[in-house]
């Protein structure tokens, strides 16, 4: 009744339904409710304060929620509708490879046994799980052209760190104490952060006017104290380092090693292999290239792949096949950098990645690469009439524009990104890479259809027009989302990081 009627039959403003204004779960709570019944006890009950001792016994969990099952379902279902996902539409975040997450992957990862095996079961009962890890590693080695793989790193950043620790162990094993890792200025922020965590010092390497490694700069920077080079290829501008082999040769010539960030492998699978370029160690992101879901920011998985000379330094344990097809864990690795996390890695992500590779097969994966690169180049061709390309060099799987033209009218890349939401799209990656002023980094992946790309291009062209005619509309976007722009400055100045009873 409150929705219409009102005065003189005119439609009045409706009070938004709770689906648009779901409270915090703590605000839904009232004492005595529960959303799950605990199975009855089949042993005599105990008096907890007695068994644990008075000093250890906890009386209450202050403020903890008490809600029914349906309330939980509604709460999280409503919250989910406030999210944009790949399932909702195009998610062209550059460098994030937001491709379709096949549902069969979710089903097989939840199979009884695969989802329930404990990491400490005896090897004779773990052949199913160990076999999956071994097969995933084998596929990763084949795709990258490397000799050995560890699936232990929990995500890309940990893969980076693991690789850097191996580089360090390698040098020290040869009695060399080197100090620096070179990183091109276009690199992901994670790279220098990982270098610091490894105890090395990061040195930035200036890119040339094509956005690539400058060989003369590299030559100057490769001192006897330089442990190696950490680069992304294709780099974060979506450009393939044409001189990659020469780059690797020069690093090797000075006794350094080459680390490759495999974040952009979606541009290469089936086309070329880093192992053939001269790369010594690299990581992959199963949550990017191999379709495991991002899940709102994790879990990821960052396998690290190495050439033979670095194999002794891989994290412990490794999985090995004995002669008769039996898999076992090898903990006896004296030169290993050690463990980077408990157990053997994000097994559930390996299951999904393997299911992805099995679905495509070798030729299918090459088709994926071709489609991803074609999609990016199609966007590039259609958008370059309205937006300035950051670099002229050919694009692989992503293209980077600059907001130069729009910024002249006071509208920045971040504004254009917010306006895309009004057109029903997730924005591209904003303001990265840092070497491009006002960067707009777009990666459509192979999962975008031509029809979707056309709609996306139309939206960006329309926004470019709006910038000319009504810049304030773009600068104030988004206008159609449940919430408008959020005050991030206050959030950081006076952090409120948890709910408290009022």
């Amino acid at each position: 009744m409150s929705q219409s009627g009102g005065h003189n039959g005119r439609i009045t403003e409706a009070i938004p339904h709770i689906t648009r204004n779901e409270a915090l779960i703590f605000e839904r709570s009232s004492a005595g409710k529960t959303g799950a019944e605990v199975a009855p006890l089949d042993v005599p009950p105990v008096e907890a304060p007695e068994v644990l001792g008075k000093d250890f016994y906890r009386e209450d969990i202050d403020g903890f929620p008490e809600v029914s099952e349906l309330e939980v379902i509604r709460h999280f279902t409503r919250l989910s509708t406030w999210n944009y996902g790949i399932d909702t539409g195009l998610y062209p975040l550059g460098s994030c490879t937001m491709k379709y997450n096949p549902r069969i992957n979710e089903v097989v990862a939840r199979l009884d046994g695969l989802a329930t095996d404990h990491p400490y079961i005896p090897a004779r009962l773990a052949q199913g799980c160990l076999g999956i890890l071994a097969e995933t590693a084998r596929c990763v080695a084949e795709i990258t052209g490397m000799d050995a793989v560890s699936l232990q790193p929990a995500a890309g950043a940990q893969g980076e760190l693991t690789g850097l620790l191996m580089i360090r162990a390698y040098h020290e094993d040869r009695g060399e104490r080197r100090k620096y890792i070179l990183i091109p200025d276009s690199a992901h922020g994670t790279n220098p952060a990982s270098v610091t965590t490894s105890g090395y010092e990061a040195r930035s390497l200036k890119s040339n006017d094509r956005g690539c490694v400058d060989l003369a700069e590299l030559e100057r920077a490769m001192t006897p104290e330089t442990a190696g080079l950490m680069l992304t290829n294709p780099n974060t501008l979506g450009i393939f380092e044409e001189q990659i082999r020469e780059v690797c040769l020069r690093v090797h010539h000075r006794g350094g090693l080459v680390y490759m960030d495999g974040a952009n492998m979606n541009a290469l699978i089936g086309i070329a292999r880093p192992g053939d370029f001269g790369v010594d160690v690299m990581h992959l992101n199963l949550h990017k290239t191999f379709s495991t879901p991002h899940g709102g920011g994790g879990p990821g998985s960052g396998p690290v792949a190495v050439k033979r000379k670095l194999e002794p330094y891989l994290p412990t344990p490794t999985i090995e096949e004995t002669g008769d097809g039996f898999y076992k864990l090898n903990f006896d690795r004296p030169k290993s950098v050690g463990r980077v996390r408990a157990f053997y890695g994000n097994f559930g992500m390996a299951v999904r990645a393997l299911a992805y590779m099995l679905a495509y097969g070798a030729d299918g994966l090459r088709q994926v690469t071709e489609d991803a690169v074609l999609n990016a180049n199609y966007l590039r061709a259609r958008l370059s009439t309205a937006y300035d390309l950051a670099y002229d060099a050919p694009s692989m799987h992503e293209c980077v524009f600059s907001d130069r033209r729009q910024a002249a009218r006071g509208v920045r890349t971040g504004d254009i990104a917010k306006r895309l939401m009004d057109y029903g799209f997730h924005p591209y990656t904003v303001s990265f890479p840092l070497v491009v002023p006002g960067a707009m980094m777009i990666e459509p992946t192979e999962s975008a259809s031509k029809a979707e790309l056309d709609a996306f291009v139309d939206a960006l062209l329309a926004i470019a027009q709006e910038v000319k005619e009504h810049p304030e509309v773009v600068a104030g976007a988004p206008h159609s989302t449940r919430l408008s722009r959020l005050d991030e400055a206050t959030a950081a100045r006076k952090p409120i990081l948890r709910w408290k009873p009022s």
Partner: protein
Amino acid sequence: MRYLPNSPEDRKEMLRATGRSSIDELFAQVPQDLRLHESLQLPGPLSEAEILEFFREAARATSKDFVSLLGAGVYRHYRPVVIDELLSRGEFLTAYTPYQPEISQGTLQALFEFQTLIAQLTGMEVANSSLYDGSTATNEAVLMAMRITGREQVLLARTMHPEYREVIKTYGRYLGTRVKEAPLQPSGQMDLHRLDCVVDEKTAAVVIQSPNFFGVLEPVSEIAELAHKHGAFLIVAVAEPLSLALVKPPAEADIVCGEAQSFGVPVAFGGPYCGFLATRDRFVRQMPGRLVGLTKDSQGRRGFVLTLVTREQFIRREKATSNICTSQTLCALAATIYLCLLGKQGLRKLARNNLAKAHDAARELQAVGAKRPFTGPFFNEFVLETPMPAGDFLRACEEEKILGGLELERFYPEMKNHLLIAVTEMVNKETIDRMARVLAGFGVDAHSSRLNGAAAPVRSH
């Protein structure tokens, strides 16, 4: 291929628009001599039905028909079906890190709730939105303590998970961290006297686990006092967080971290799991990991954003507080849903049941000849010393489709025939009865098999 949306005609049209004459031309910048000229040697392609069969086949070679008493930082608890139903919503499953808050409020609000739940359980003021797992969360806590205190020595309890200790050593190896280990006493707790001798003004943190690796609760207040006396941090790792429903939270600690896998995250052969890290408000700017904060939109409506991002790698690069850029959002969401479903009463009841079952099992197995070497109070996990070689006992249990525990000798060479046993609500009384019969039958069988001249012990039920 079923996942690819473009038709051959679409591809042709798009290629035309790029001005290239062939797909090959798109890769022109990859030098010819670096190109692959043959197909990769990979299995597949497989149809959906074949993929399902492939993994079902793998699942046949697992322990799925076994009852498991393995714990050691990974616990099998019942997972209400609601968790996977909600996790499977594409808006949660297929979203990226919530950098664009206007269209990510679902993830952001859920993570704000996760932070609140962890803070409530741990007795801390503030929690982050998750880290990789318990081992790396504990390592991040160590690095955080070193940053804040400016000290480099770290004291690890030998009663802490051996793999957590290994991870801390790996990270510390090149950062100048001096790692020392503090021994245990007969109670299965840390030796406070020996600890007192090694903590000094160079110590950044004393790192303990409670319940510890042996399931025993550590005297947190006393250890805190000892650490604080020297200006060191106390870090408490919690690997079985269900204990927090019934056991006093380690509120005297400076950082409480650990593993939230118990809360609705599958055991899954070691991961993905859900690390957490909680601390005091005054240390928040030195915390690693993503943080979600409450704020308002331009029209004054409540909303959530990722906040204090200037700590993070994508802004600070080499000066970041940590190189971690993912949390474990989906696992944190599973934990949030789990904790909301169970709620205060459900979680406490579940914890009481775990406590009762573990103590009943310990009693029953002791009654047939096993010893419980550690005297400290325990929650749902305990150590048992078997009168026969522990490996023989475990293999006999396996015959009964029971995974009877973890042989501690693997990590503690001095602990021969010591088993670490976890009893959750997933283990019923009947299983414990059968284990007790196996244990009791051993002496008899060994005797009778000697008489019969048989090599292997034969058990009867």
